[in-house]
């Protein structure tokens, strides 16, 4: 659906050249939710803005829905843009228009007749759950509601692709979740390809199928979300994965435990995929003569299954413990002995 080849963007600033995006090759499939994560200044916005030519690439090619975006004439580019919806961190609604008029705006641009516009706007208001708010002005809405208007507006012309530039970064966690739910919903209903950029792993975890990690204008790692969570290769990726899997205070709390007498073995179990919900702990206690204490844990749901870590403290006879660890390994749960023999 989207192919980027050798895409690069260099800005000429007073301080010299700044390479915001550096030779990126990327393919995004139809119907997938693709996330790009990176710290501030990594070049995420520049990258996503090149997908609809809001930013003109210095070199390289962008193809969206079979159209080579670089080579389009002004008029063709405008037509192509009508097929690509975009939502923004600060919503960018027209405050002089009501909710319904805002949603109608892209339809007016396309030249859709007014009766058709009306029915389409009604549909969209329902789709994003803003029933009864059509006559309100943006200033009368909450942040989450404004983003819903943004989404409805972006979907008005039945685009094939939706671009989200930090679409939830201005929202509180609960509202973020509701907007992400909505995105998952429309992705399924409309088989819409969604590209979103964010600096929150939480967002990636919640809705993306695949993720790319960006640093200094390059993609340093990419793959299915679960794989990247399971085996983060780059240091950067590990840091992002930690955001959602490990409680921040884990190390401190555990170190404190290690100094205690008779602490026994401390294991870190890493669950990937569907295993997290299994009654592993119960099994262990039943099958082996060991005592288990759960010290810390954090499990997260991703689009394809759960992921998370559990820190447990196992005490008992040495050979029982070894048997137990072997058993855990067989369950396709990764185990790391972080304290004890």
């Amino acid at each position: 659906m989207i192919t980027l080849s050798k895409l690069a963007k260099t800005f000429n600033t007073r301080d010299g050249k700044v390479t915001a995006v550096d030779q990126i090759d990327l393919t995004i499939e139809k119907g997938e939710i693709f996330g790009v994560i990176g710290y501030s200044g990594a070049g995420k916005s520049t990258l996503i803005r090149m997908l609809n030519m809001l930013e003109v690439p210095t070199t390289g090619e962008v193809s969206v829905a079979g159209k080579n975006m670089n080579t389009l004439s002004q008029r063709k580019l405008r037509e192509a843009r009508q097929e690509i919806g975009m939502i923004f961190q600060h919503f960018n609604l027209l405050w002089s228009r009501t909710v319904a008029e805002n949603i109608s705006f892209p339809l007016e641009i396309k030249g859709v007749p007014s009766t058709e516009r009306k029915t389409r706007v009604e549909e969209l208001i329902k789709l994003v759950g803003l029933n009864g708010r059509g006559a309100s002005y943006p200033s009368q809405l909450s942040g989450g509601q404004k983003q819903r208007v943004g989404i409805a507006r972006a979907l008005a012309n039945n685009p094939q692709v939706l671009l989200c530039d930090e679409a939830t970064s201005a929202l509180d966690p609960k509202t973020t979740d509701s907007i992400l739910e909505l995105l998952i919903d429309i992705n399924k209903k409309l088989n819409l390809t969604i590209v979103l950029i964010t600096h929150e792993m939480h967002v990636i975890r919640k809705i993306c199928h695949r993720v790319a990690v960006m640093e200094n204008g390059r993609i340093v790692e990419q793959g299915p979300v679960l794989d990247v969570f399971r085996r983060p290769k780059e240091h950067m990726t590990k840091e992002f994965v930690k955001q959602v899997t490990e409680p921040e205070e884990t190390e401190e709390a555990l170190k404190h435990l290690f100094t205690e007498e008779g602490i026994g073995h401390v294991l870190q179990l890493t669950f990937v995929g569907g295993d997290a919900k299994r009654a592993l702990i119960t099994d262990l206690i039943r099958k082996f003569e060991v005592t288990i204490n759960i010290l810390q844990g954090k499990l997260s749901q991703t689009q394809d299954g759960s992921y998370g870590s559990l820190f447990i403290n196992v005490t008992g006879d040495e050979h029982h413990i070894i048997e137990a660890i072997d058993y855990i390994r067989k369950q396709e749960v990764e185990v790391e002995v972080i304290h004890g023999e």
Partner: protein
Amino acid sequence: MNNLLVGSILLLENVNWVNMWEATAETVYMSLIALLFTFIFGTILGLLLFLTARGQLWQNKIVHSIIAAYVNIFRSIPFIILIVLLVPFTSALVGTMLGPSAALPALIIGAAPFYARMVEIALREIDKGVIEASKAMGASNSQIIFKVLIPESVPALISGITVTAIALIGYTAMAGVIGAGGLGDLAYRDGFQRNNPDITLIATMIVLVFVFVLQFIGDYFTNKLDKR
């Protein structure tokens, strides 16, 4: 003597109401026509000033510099001097130097840059993100101008035109020096020079009423249309 003066002011015995009415009509005529053209030219100039600036839709350094220079120069010349400077131009254009129509070129040339700056400021206040969102939706430049830039700045444009209209009424009073007529002319010639303070008083009051009414209407619409 003093009592006599106060009495004559209160009784308004020197006021020739026909003249007063005529002067009022001339002021209204000059202000309205000048305002109409100021609005048209000012909006165009303001839009051009905004659109040709760096990073905007029609970025163009040369055009921008020329318009900016015109706006700055004509906004800085005191109006009374501008009228005198424009005498040859006006006589050529209107064919006469007398009467309210003769004041129009100077009024428009003086007020349009003033309004153009306000239009530019109003447009600059629009969130850049909104313009970008419109581009992302595939809007053409003219759609951005007429569906985004102008509607989004309407409250600021209205408060700008209100301020300009009030300034224009002030300018019409000064236009009296070239024999343009109007309330200012009447207040100065018949009121001040002939020592009839009651005429000055009434003329001033009429001008004040105009200013207050304009400000009231302007504020009303600015608030009503501001949905931010």
